[in-house]
């Protein structure tokens, strides 16, 4: 890519950089220059105080930084004024779709409203300013919050114990698989149990996680009803099976109604039952994985418990475990070391502190059975406190309502789109419903991708497409519980309209999107000739003036 400035450009109509929806039929597309193009030598936003004379004098008595260690390369960070910085990011932000702008029915991602109250809580100085290594007497609030959240998640999932350490769902999976291996090793079966069974509808993270732990993956097919093929599962289970990793409700949005038999078979084979909790929003208060017999499940706080997804993170992926896996939980755990747990809980639920309660982190090495540590410090605390605020705001009744309304919304969409798109598994769904655009593809050469791009032109985000892999031309719709009926109706109308247009004028659908900041991008070129970072003009490189 040419490094020399590509200035903000507008379309041929010559109008200025505009970010509002264009008038019907008109397209206004804008390129925001990179920070590097905005940069001008000598501009800046933030300054720091110079060290005092006294500090300099005292410091002079100490050995300085050795010259040999000093930077020799110029440091070409952007040089911009604060207003330019603000405009740059605000202009970029307007090129994004987000929950706070409009509907975001991205299946498997639970794009529900992220309450502003949580953001307020995250910015409380007493929480945001808490250092992870602050001695216990200074961090009782952070530790109590983590302990309480673990207690709440334990109850929600029906588990014996919880670790908040994993930073994301896939990280929770990794933790769970490491614990699975530690469990088998503790029984002298570590060498023998090397296979993880994964349904063909699984998230890609499941097999990838199994590989990271040195397991091999064996795929179990689905049956005609969208559940797991029980006979195939029984055939695959054996003395070499380490675990079954299963998402329930599945990525088809279907509750595994043979789950009882599945769990019995897994248990009889001596394997661990892992539940991917990505779809927990569908079953709050109705199904508790731990109680049902799962050994381990990760929670996605950024899905079920409303912490913002941030354009790809941070999330948080705490795990709940059964009694037999609890000894292997990563260290350190936040512990209540003085005080009665029931009293501490009861007080906290009424907004009171317990005077004699004391919390502490497990000291290093205190629990030799632990698999170790999966990240520094205690996990994504900023997400923990948001999830805690959310669970407390909702309470038991609210969380049940969340699930009821999420499932209600998905079924409401299901029954209204069944005439326009194929429904490979036509049965009551949970929080999401998976359609197929195979009819549109076959009859009009309009693919799921084309339909997604046409949806973009309507100002809403498309469903997840081409996943799960077992559904041809998949359109995976998860409306969530926070969307009004009017929004759902509008979405249904849009989907019908696109189905009609696919038949009437397929070429126009294939040409979408037309109203987005950029058109379809050449992904093949991006992969063929990777441009993964700003290329400074050569003059800069050889100019070699060390900043400062």
């Amino acid at each position: 890519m040419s490094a020399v400035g590509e200035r903000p450009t507008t379309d041929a109509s010559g109008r200025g950089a505009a970010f509002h929806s264009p008038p019907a039929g008109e397209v206004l597309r804008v390129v925001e220059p990179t920070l590097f193009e905005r940069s001008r030598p000598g501009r800046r936003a933030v300054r720091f105080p110079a060290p005092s004379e006294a500090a300099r004098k005292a410091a002079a008595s100490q050995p300085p930084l050795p010259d040999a260690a000093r930077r020799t390369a110029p440091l070409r960070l952007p040089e911009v004024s604060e207003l330019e910085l603000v405009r740059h990011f605000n202009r970029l932000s307007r090129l994004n779709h987000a929950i706070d702008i409009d509907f975001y029915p991205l299946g498997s991602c639970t794009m529900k409203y992220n309450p502003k109250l949580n953001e307020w809580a995250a910015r409380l100085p007493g929480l945001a300013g808490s250092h992870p290594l602050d001695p216990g007497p200074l961090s009782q609030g952070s530790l109590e919050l983590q302990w309480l959240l673990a207690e709440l998640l334990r109850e929600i999932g029906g588990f014996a114990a919880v670790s908040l350490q994993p930073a994301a769902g896939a990280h929770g999976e990794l933790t769970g698989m490491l614990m699975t291996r530690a469990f088998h090793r503790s029984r002298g079966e570590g060498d023998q149990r090397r296979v993880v069974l994964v349904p063909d509808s699984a998230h890609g993270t499941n097999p990838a996680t199994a590989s990271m732990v040195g397991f091999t993956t064996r795929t179990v097919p689905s049956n005609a009803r969208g559940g797991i093929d029980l006979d195939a599962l029984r055939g695959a289970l054996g003395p070499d099976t380490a675990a079954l990793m299963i998402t329930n409700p599945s990525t088809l949005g279907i509750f595994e109604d043979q789950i009882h038999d599945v769990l019995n078979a897994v248990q009889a084979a001596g394997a661990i039952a892992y539940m991917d909790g990505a779809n927990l929003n569908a079953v709050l208060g109705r199904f508790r994985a731990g109680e049902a017999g799962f050994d381990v499940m990760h929670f996605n706080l950024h899905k079920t418990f409303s912490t913002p997804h941030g354009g790809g993170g941070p999330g948080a992926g705490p795990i709940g475990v059964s009694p037999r896996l609890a000894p292997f939980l990563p260290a350190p755990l936040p512990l209540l070391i003085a005080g009665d747990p029931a009293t501490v809980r009861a007080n906290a639920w009424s907004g009171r502190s317990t005077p004699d309660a004391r919390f502490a982190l497990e000291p290093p090495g205190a629990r030799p059975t632990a698999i170790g540590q999966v990240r520094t410090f205690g996990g994504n605390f900023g997400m923990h406190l948001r999830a805690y605020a959310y669970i407390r705001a909702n309470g038991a009744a609210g969380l049940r309502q969340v699930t009821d309304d999420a499932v209600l919304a998905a079924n409401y969409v299901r029954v209204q789109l069944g005439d326009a798109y194929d429904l490979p598994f036509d049965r009551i769904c949970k929080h999401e419903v998976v359609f197929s655009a195979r009819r549109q593809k076959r009859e009009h050469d309009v693919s799921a991708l084309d339909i997604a791009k046409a949806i973009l032109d309507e100002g809403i985000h498309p469903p997840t497409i081409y996943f799960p892999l077992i559904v041809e031309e998949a359109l995976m719709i998860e409306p969530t519980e926070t969307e009004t009926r009017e929004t759902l109706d509008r979405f249904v109308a849009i989907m019908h309209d696109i189905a009609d247009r696919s038949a009437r004028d397929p070429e126009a659908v294939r040409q979408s999107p037309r109203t987005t900041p950029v058109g379809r991008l050449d992904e093949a070129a991006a992969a063929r000739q990777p441009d993964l970072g700003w290329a400074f003009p050569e003059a800069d490189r050889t100019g070699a003036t060390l900043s400062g």
Partner: protein
Amino acid sequence: MTYSPHTDADRVAMLEAIGVESVDDLFADIPESVRASRFDLPPPLTEQEVRAELSRLAGLNRIPEVSFLGAGAYRRLIPAVVDEVVGRAEFATAYTPYQPEVSQGTLQSIYEFQSLVCELTGMEVASASHYDGATATAEGALMACRLTGRHRVAVSRAVHPQVRRVLETYCSGPGVEVVEVPADLSETGSGLTDLDAVRSLVGEDVACLVVQEPNFFGLLEPMSELAEAAHAAGALIVTLVDPVSLALLEAPGRYGADIVTAEGQSLGIPLAFGGPYLGLMAARMNAVRQLPGRLVGATRDAAGRRGYVLTLQAREQHIRREKAASNICTNQALCALAATAYLSAVGPEGLREAAERSTIQARHLVATLEMAGIAARRFTAPYFNEVALRLADAGPRHAALVEQGILAGLVVEPEYPELPDTLLLATTELTTDDDIRRLAAALGAAA
């Protein structure tokens, strides 16, 4: 309190459209035998009650008036403009940019982030972020195993103990052996990774040497020599760096680093009791296909307009499944945005000022404590903005100061039994002369 928009009339209408009597009918597929028997959670709270509860917990924390605690997480200035940027709902409430046409804001900011990480580290390609510096380092070591086809990793004892633990946990997955390289922590020691031990321990079967610069004790390692020693055995060098230090210290790409990782918390991210933080990872372009995590690339649309997409996804779990370079999916995108906003807010001059003020205050601190005869440097090697000090009764004096709202850094002994009576103290641009006076006075009085 619930965030559901539905009225009872809405629900009735929706149930009618679906053709069921009650919402329970939608859960008929959950067999009786596995239904939840309980859901014993506290009652719902209103906004003012939630505020009171979170304020209660925040109030149980005590933020020290004066703190010299660092050890992997640093109290630094977060410019107001950074919080403003990450608070934009268009960034905060977007998902992973799977539809590039409506995600250009996120995608371009990640492209800028990758560019900034390359510029700081002197490397050629950087990933879109990892969970934290430790997991980035662990994934870097596993990447080195894939690149070299070797299954053993050497790590210096002068690397942050928690990072070493995470490294060991990750390496235990595929059965990669972790060998510890000693550091010279003797009475008159340098505090640095033992170079001779590196030469003898890093052999033909070792994939990489993992070191930290500045190391856990704030000391500057002989990076070129370490890199040479690793390379002589055909091993790679994975260096965990402090991004703020790179305003003053040599870019790792210039001393031969193969994989550079960093904890990015210092770049505009609050302490928040340990997270969310930001893992940085950078490498050479010829290793890009083994790089774990998302990557954003620039490309064009049909009209020739510049745009950005997730690219080289054939490395990733959603495409490659069990053959992926890593299982990472969700990362720390909003924290990467904070770092991008931070680095452009401070610019090259500001980052240099922050780093320099930090190092000068560290020397000011050491000079003050040494002059008063309170403490002395524990190690001889040059230091950056963090320093290990020896003083009598370190533990009890540290505890006594906590009571006064003064946090005299970290007591090192629980992690390093061979280092009794040692405190690790960090200074940053926020450390004032008065902080140093108060610490010296309190430590003197607690003698």
